[in-house]
């Protein structure tokens, strides 16, 4: 126990004496927490729409107006010139082109049927299909208004109507930061805990001080625990920091109890540190560690459901992501912060996180060699 505390005290002294590293540890979380949620707004809005109106009728003008008034679209000027419209699409100045052919209004009234065409820049498939859907919806509304006006329909319901009322729980105004902040916090804790611990040990390898420890009677678990505890502590500090930033910048107050958040963070950090410790036993220098860590972090982030939902992944990818400790922590933090879930709702995640913590740390201790073979 005493020896473990010696290492802990030494590590804390070392961390606090390297201002550059300390600054990084504070700056990195701040930057990410402030920037990423602001940027990660996936709602498709502000679609640049250009209208090539070759009809110049009152209907075509009122349709254009209706589209422009919608929050989804921003009208872009194309001067009615199809060549220019094409150029605008190529140069990303416009995302969608609506062609209103000559005779649009005439056909609608006389033939009772008319046609429009929409062209979308589909490089970003998601945006293109949503843009088309929104446009169709608005045109459909316009169609109904026109029909009611032309038919002079009496306003009563003669046929069955299913009315769908939807309500969004927990996040009624569809605010993205509420969703992103807990996820990014999970990622940060992983980086601060796991990555920093790994780099720290690898640094000792590079300078050579680790040899001095290896020829001493210090036990493997004492060494690793001594490294684990200070970074565990720093990880908890970064959780606190993250929650404060979330509150100050985005006004996010966790719905669940802080105690639950800290409890899960404490458990999770053991696993995250296990990843770091294991990593440090596998590499020789900081460059390798960086690359290796990068590889793992990319995997964790992409497969952890931070940006794209895990439910949308194919089966094999879902299985892969269930071996990713970050998956569970992202889920847990989101659940606690957004929905106020308690420990009893998250028993499965708790079990997985504990399992990761134990397995990874045992592996790390087994892999750490005081004596090379």
């Amino acid at each position, binding site marked *: 126990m005493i020896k473990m505390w*010696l290492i802990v005290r030494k590590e804390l002294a070392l961390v606090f004496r390297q201002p550059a590293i300390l600054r990084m540890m504070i700056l990195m979380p701040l930057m990410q927490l402030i920037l990423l949620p602001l940027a990660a707004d996936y709602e498709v809005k502000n679609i640049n729409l250009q209208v090539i109106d070759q009809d110049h009728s009152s209907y075509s003008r009122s349709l254009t107006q209706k589209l422009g008034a919608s929050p989804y679209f921003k009208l872009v000027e194309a001067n009615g010139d199809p060549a220019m419209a094409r150029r605008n699409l190529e140069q990303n100045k416009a995302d969608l082109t609506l062609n209103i052919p000559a005779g649009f209004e005439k056909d609608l009234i006389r033939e009772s049927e008319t046609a429009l065409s929409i062209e979308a820049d589909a490089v970003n498939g998601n945006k293109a299909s949503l843009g088309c859907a929104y446009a169709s919806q608005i045109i459909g509304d316009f169609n109904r208004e026109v029909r009611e006006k032309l038919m002079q329909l009496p306003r009563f319901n003669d046929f069955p109507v299913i009315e769908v009322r939807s309500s969004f729980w927990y996040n009624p105004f569809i605010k993205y930061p509420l969703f992103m902040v807990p996820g990014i916090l999970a990622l940060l804790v992983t980086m601060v805990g796991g990555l920093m611990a790994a780099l720290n040990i690898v640094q000792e390898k590079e300078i050579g001080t680790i040899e001095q420890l290896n020829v*001493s009677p210090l036990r493997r678990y004492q060494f690793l625990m001594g490294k684990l505890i200070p970074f565990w502590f720093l990880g908890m500090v970064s959780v606190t920091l993250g929650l404060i930033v979330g509150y100050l910048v985005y006004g996010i107050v966790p719905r669940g109890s802080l105690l639950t958040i800290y409890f899960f963070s404490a458990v999770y950090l053991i696993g995250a540190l296990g990843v770091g410790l294991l990593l440090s036993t596998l590499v020789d220098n900081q460059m390798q560690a960086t690359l290796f860590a990068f590889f793992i972090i990319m995997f964790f982030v992409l497969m952890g459901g931070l940006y794209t939902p895990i439910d949308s992944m194919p089966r094999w990818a879902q299985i892969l992501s269930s071996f990713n400790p970050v998956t569970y922590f992202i889920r847990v933090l989101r659940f606690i912060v957004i929905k106020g879930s308690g420990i009893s709702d998250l028993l499965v995640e708790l079990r997985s996180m504990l399992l990761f913590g134990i397995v990874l740390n045992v592996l790390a201790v087994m892999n750490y060699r005081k004596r090379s073979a």
Partner: protein
Amino acid sequence: MKAIEVKDLTRKFGDFTAVDHISFDVSKGEIFGFLGANGAGKTTAMRMLCGLLKPSSGEGRVAGFDINLQSEEIKKNIGYMSQKFSLYNDLTARENILFYGGLYDIPYKELKIKSERLLDRLGLGPYANKLLRDYPLGWKQKLAFSVAIQHQPMIVFLDEPTGGVDPITRRQFWDMIYESAEGGLTVFVTTHYMDEAEYCHRVCIMVDGRIAAMDTPQSLKKKYESQNMDEVFRKLARGAVRSPDVPGRGKR
């Protein structure tokens, strides 16, 4: 009991035999010099004795413990100082002493008293709270040696301890070694400074992983009809095959 006994100690890295069946022993209180060019295998041999590297074959006992089976027991009874500077630059002198002392189970109260005494003896008292990074290299080396023997080990292993240090400091450093050896400490030191070999009670010269010669400096000079150890060494190393910087020289 001898401090170190080694028989047919061998270490291979793949096809490369870094240390090839070496046998020797070192008595208590002896200053034993381990000489050789870069790549001759001296660091590899030392790392096996300290329990940092597993021998491929051969036997040996350090401080009475088997190097194959009892490496952790050995570690309690030896001190070690490596060619790379091995104290923490971002800790103060006092913190370094307390930290490493603690690792060897020196009771804290005793350690506290001892560390103050040590700082006084080294003349570091006024600077004890400065970070080590600001110390001149010579001071650091002396401190590192004192730290390596503060738990009163039976043997201390010094791996090229005076690399990059000026002659006066080197002289002072060897005075410290003598002083400790008189107190009964066994010193196992590797070096490639041949003048330092003269300070040793007995030296062992390694060439290409084998022991080329082993005796007192006086007898060696007589045997090889040389003025100094440098000449002895050159005569012995003439037949060396390995160039310095052979890969796998225990850099793991």
